[in-house]
């Protein structure tokens, strides 16, 4: 599903964020990416949806070789990848429904499909009854659920989440994790960068630890391994 071979990234200011990364993530896996701040987690994750390109090595996602992918084909790659952020990135002037529908409209889906699929997805994240509300009228956890709904509404094969519980209190974080588990159970690959020790140690999944731009640990059903 996601394969990296000998991947390195050096930024134009000379900072090396990643060096010689080799990794293979199978379809349907749930992977935590852990490590101290500034270790290269963000770079690692952003490379998967080609927000950042490696200076060396090859990455392939869903069978597409990203280093050979032409610029105008990137949108097609992104349609198979859902992305969730710590700060939700919702459009404040649009309702919950419109925020989710937006992701389908801009890739020119049929209106009839949009309506059905958005309601289905909002039901999955438990927000069907709040479809008409604005993001500002929701709690942080609810806003994150809207953003998750938006990331999966186009049925991507993989969801990449960058600290999705970073801004949420513990109780809410568990709710969000339950949703990710639900999505994973339906066959979607999930890659999640996180600092949340309890979650990683309780809901056991594969753990990839990155330190100083290198993978220092990669274990199935691993531990968080750091003092939080």
């Amino acid at each position, binding site marked *: 599903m996601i394969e990296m071979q000998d991947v390195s990234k050096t930024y134009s200011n000379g900072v090396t964020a990643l060096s010689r990364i080799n990794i293979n993530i199978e379809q349907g896996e749930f992977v935590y990416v852990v490590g101290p701040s500034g270790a290269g987690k963000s770079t690692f994750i952003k490379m998967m949806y080609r927000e950042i390109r490696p200076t060396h090595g090859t990455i392939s996602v869903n069978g597409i070789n990203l280093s050979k992918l032409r610029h*105008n084909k990137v949108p097609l790659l992104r349609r198979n990848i859902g992305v969730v952020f710590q700060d939700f*990135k919702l459009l404040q002037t649009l309702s919950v429904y419109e925020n989710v529908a937006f992701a389908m409209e*801009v*890739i020119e889906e*049929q209106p009839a499909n949009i309506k059905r699929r958005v309601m289905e997805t909002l039901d999955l994240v438990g927000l069907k009854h709040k479809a008409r509300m604005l993001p500002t009228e929701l709690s942080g956890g609810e806003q994150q659920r809207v953003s998750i709904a938006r990331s999966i509404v186009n049925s991507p094969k993989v969801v990449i989440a960058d600290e999705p519980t970073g801004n949420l209190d513990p109780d809410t974080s568990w709710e969000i994790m339950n949703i990710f588990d639900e999505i994973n159970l339906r066959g979607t690959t999930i890659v999640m960068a996180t600092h949340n020790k309890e979650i990683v140690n309780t809901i056991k999944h594969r753990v990839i630890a990155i330190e100083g731009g290198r993978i220092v640990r990669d274990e199935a059903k691993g531990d968080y391994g750091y003092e939080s």
Partner: protein
Amino acid sequence: MKRRVITDMKARTFRRHIRESFKSLTRNGWMTFASVSAVTVTLLLVGVFFVIMMNLNRMATTIEEDVEIRVHIDVAANEKDKDYLEEKIGQLGGIKSITYSPKEKELDNLIKSLGDRGESFKLFEQDNPLNDVFVVKTKDPTDTMKIAKQIEKMDYVSSAKYGQGKVEKLFNVLKISRNVGLVLIIGLLFTAMFLISNTIKITIVARRREIEIMRLVGATNSFIRWPFFLEGLWLGILGAIIPIAVVSSAYYYLFDFIQAKLIREHFIKLIEFNPFVYQLSAVLLIMGAAIGIWGSLMSVRKFLKV
């Protein structure tokens, strides 16, 4: 069946782009107003300049057609000498026509052109003091002076005259006003484009998050660009409306007034309203659209690294 679905989808997408572009026009009210005004001022000047230049050009061609060299033949020349001279002039490059006009005809013309006062010249019919003349026309009126000088050096030529000074002056005035106008207009065009690209830059900044999400969920680059492209187009077209209205109606109402005066005093005709003004309107509209599109492309390329 499948084809139909695709075309339906395209139309719907297009409607969405149009809706979005109008939304940003109203959202950035003041910037919209500023850019439309800039285009308006620019095109108004372009329009007025165009009308004046085209008419001046028309006058120049009319006058140019009248530019001729009058070769006064030496009184000592006999028929053979005249034939020889005519042949020599004909051998110069760039000659359109040579017409012989005997001195009797010259006197007639003189008397006619002086009207009542010409009567007194009739006395000269007995002993005509004028010369026989070759009237020479050149293919390119700007060559007139050069050719006149060459003819003047030939044998049997007493003098070669053309509208000395006047012709050069007219050409100079035309050239200078053309250049000054062009510089002015190019400067204004850039100002208008700069303002439009700034307006669109503001739209892009205001919609940064929207654009970010569109890119994340896989909207194509052209899908993202279209609304901005259309916004630029509307700004340009909106800016062209007032100049077209003003220039057309001004030409329509001033035409008769100026025309009457010009014909009476100078025998000069203006360019007819139809189709000139319609062509001019089309030019202004296209220029407005081009300024708008160019302005938007500049900012989109810079600020939307998609």
